[in-house]
């Protein structure tokens, strides 16, 4: 599903964010990417949805070399990926339903399908009853659910989440992680970067730990940190 082959990323500033990363993530996996701030977690995800290009090595998503996509085909890749962020990235003047439908509308979905499909996605995150609320009327956890619904609306095989609980209180964080786990159980591959030790330690999923842009540990049913 996702493969990184000896990938390095050096930003134009000269800063090396990732060094010689090789990683393979299979269909249906749930992967935590952990590591201190600045260790390269966000950069790793950015390479997958092609917000950044690798400096060396190859990044394969669904078997396609993402680094070699023509500019015109990037949009096509993005429609097959869901991406979720710490800051939700919702449009403040639009309702929950409109925010989800937005992703369909701007990708040329027929008008008649917008509402039913957006509603279905909202239903998957348990927020169908809040469809008319604008972001300011929703809690942080609810806003993150709306952004997850938007990420799911194209039924992507792969969901990327960059510190999705970074702005949330512990209860909401649990709710979001449980939602992501449920989405994973229904077949979607999920890659989550996080600092949330408690959740990682309870869920016991695969853990990829980055340190200074290198893979320091890649462990099945891992813990947030290696016990001392």
């Amino acid at each position, binding site marked *: 599903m996702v493969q990184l082959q000896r990938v390095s990323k050096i930003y134009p500033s000269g800063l090396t964010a990732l060094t010689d990363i090789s990683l393979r993530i299979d269909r249906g996996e749930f992967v935590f990417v952990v590591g201190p701030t600045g260790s390269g977690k966000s950069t790793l995800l950015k390479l997958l949805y092609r917000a950044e290009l690798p400096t060396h090595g190859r990044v394969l998503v669904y078997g396609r070399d993402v680094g070699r996509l023509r500019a015109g085909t990037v949009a096509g890749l*993005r*429609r097959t990926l869901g*991406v979720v962020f710490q800051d939700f*990235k919702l*449009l403040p003047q639009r309702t929950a339903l409109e925010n989800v439908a937005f*992703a369909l509308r*701007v*990708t*040329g979905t*027929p008008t008649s399908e917008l509402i039913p499909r957006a509603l279905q996605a909202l239903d998957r995150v348990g927020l169908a009853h809040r469809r008319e609320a604008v972001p300011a009327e929703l809690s942080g956890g609810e806003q993150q659910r709306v952004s997850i619904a938007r990420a799911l609306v194209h039924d992507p095989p792969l969901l990327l989440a960059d510190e999705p609980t970074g702005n949330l209180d512990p209860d909401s964080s649990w709710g979001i992680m449980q939602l992501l786990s449920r989405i994973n159980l229904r077949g979607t591959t999920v890659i989550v970067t996080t600092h949330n030790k408690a959740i990682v330690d309870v869920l016991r999923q695969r853990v990829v730990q980055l340190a200074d842009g290198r893979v320091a540990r890649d462990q099945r049913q891992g813990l947030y940190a290696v016990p001392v």
Partner: protein
Amino acid sequence: MLSRSSAFRQFLREGEASFRRNGLMTVAAVTTVTVALLTVGFAIAGGLNLSHLAATLNTQVEIVAFLRDGMRPAEVTRTQTAIAEITGVAAVHFVSRAEALARLERRLGASPAFADLAKHNPLPDSFDVRVRDARLTGAVAGALQGQPGVEDVTYAAQVVDRLVAVTRVMRLMALLLTVALSAVAVIVVTNTLRLTVIARWREIEIMELVGATRWFIRWPFLIEGMLQGLVAAVAAGTVLLLLYALAAARLRTGLPFLPMVPAIDLAAPLLIAMIGCGVALGAAGSFVAVRRFLST
């Protein structure tokens, strides 16, 4: 097809909505483009008038070829045919010495001095030669000199040469001015539209993330830019034509010999050029403004 046409209607709706939402900003943008287009329009109107003046003067440039006395009519006809065949000659008109005298009389008016002159008409037969293009005057004059029976050739050499030079310089200046002001207008549009783009950067960011194509993202901004250009062009065109009509009316009474393009004749080319320029400037400006925000 259904989704495509609905997408287009949506572009229009969004362009229009944004036009209304960013009211003050839009007014500022349209005003600046209007001013830029006005200056471009003045350059165009000035340029058209210069061309008109040059064309008028060009057709008025005449050379007179004086013939020696005592030519037989057959010889005169042969020379006329030869002159007509010289490259650059638009028309040849034979002026008999009697006709030349009559012209002179018309110009000077009847006077004792003239009556005295008329007794022994000193004027020779001549040809009035009109050239197609003022720049050919020198060459045509030279060729005339060699024709059988032509004794002398006169033309306002310096006036013509100077006019040709002045027209060329003024045309070049008008062109440079137009190019420079168009560049300024694009920069202005880019900067004002960038405000619109910044106001919607979050939308653009999300559109990119969820897989909207670059053209889909661009279209609303392009439409908005082109709308602004269109409004500015119509405003500038109206102002310019009104001013021009006023100025033309003034000049016609004040300087009647100065040939000016009538406002009516100017309206169509000017409006077409300004609308074309305005829309193109608006599109170019928004294209540049959005490009910086597109990450792919």
